[in-house]
């Protein structure tokens, strides 16, 4: 029973952190599958040509489609997105992990980068 309780999330939450577990993996399957498809340049071009049709093809639900429309990373994570696949979505717009980090923390990209540099001082 102890193991099952732990698996069900009895561990203390880590602030600002969503562990990508089975629950998230099920919730975000369609969204992550779409983002996984962005490994292909042809698929990235298809997405850019018609975002809504592309999202429909992968069966995204409304919260996922809405978060895709708004390019909102925290909402994409809440909708089951995994950061490794979401990074491929961000890549379509030429955004890297520091842009994504800035957006999630509500900082400018410059301020976010500076925060990292300061962590090394």
């Amino acid at each position, binding site marked *: 029973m102890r193991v099952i309780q732990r698996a069900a999330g009895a561990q203390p939450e*880590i602030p600002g952190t969503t*562990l990508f577990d089975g629950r998230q993996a099920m919730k975000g399957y369609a969204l*992550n599958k779409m983002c996984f498809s962005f490994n292909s340049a042809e698929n990235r071009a298809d997405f850019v040509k018609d975002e809504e049709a592309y999202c429909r093809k992968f069966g995204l639900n409304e919260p996922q489609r809405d978060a895709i429309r708004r390019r909102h990373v925290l909402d994409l994570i809440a909708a089951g997105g995994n950061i490794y696949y979401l990074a*491929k979505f961000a890549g379509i717009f030429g955004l*890297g992990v520091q842009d994504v*980090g800035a957006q999630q923390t509500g900082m400018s990209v410059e301020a976010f980068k500076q925060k990292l540099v300061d962590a090394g001082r």
Partner: protein
Amino acid sequence: MARIAGAVTTSHIPAIGNAIARGLQDQPYWKPFFDGFHAVRQWLQEVRPDVAVVVYNDHGLQFFLDKMPTFAIGAATEYLNADEGWGLPTLPPYRGDPEFSWHLIESLVADEFDLTTCQEMYVDHAFTVPLKLMWPDGPTCPVKTVPVAVNTIQHPLPSPARCLKFGAALGRAIESYDEDLKVVVIGTGGLSHQLDGERAGFINRDFDLMCMAQIVDQPQALTRYSIHELVEQAGTQGVELINWLVARGALTGRVRKLHSNYHIPISNTASGLMLLENAA
């Protein structure tokens, strides 16, 4: 018999691949990171390994959530790199050593590590960037390779304790191979970083330095952490430390630290590098 000359553990941040492609190694932002590799390259030139066993985690180039192996190993004549979706240049194929791979598989499964075997396997930046850092010259990697992928994407992840044991089994597997191969084991990823959530940008220097100190002589001390505690201390992607533990576990001889480097930041990450010799 095959022999493990040592292990190199290093971060594998994609931005390093871009910096190499653009020749930024001597720029102030990059220099403290790239300079760390001189000693490793010199050691590799002296040791001249035949094969690199690379323990890394795939970031959604090869594996998707439809089938997610906890441990996977390549058994192919070559491994292809490919477009990961964010503009890294695609590198030429890597030579494999399928006979050696199948020996490792036989030995590991007999040793109760039932891993997924791959006769086709795309290798992403976590595999290619460290090899490029260690062998920067020439278009192709001069040593044969065996990719070993560890799941760090979808929880539950294998615990630090499990990964150290897996590494020990990998070490036994390598050193029971009949041919006179000289092997270097490479563990990639880490150190502390977090890409996702409001805690993005999280770094923990004290924890990283403690891990780098303990992993040399007391790797067992790191197995007391659960994955959850590792995420708490090192960030969601800092758990890639488990790849280092696999590489460290493979060293069964007298282990001595020859070199290390630690630098904050490269992109969102505290970068770490260690060169561990495995004397007979």
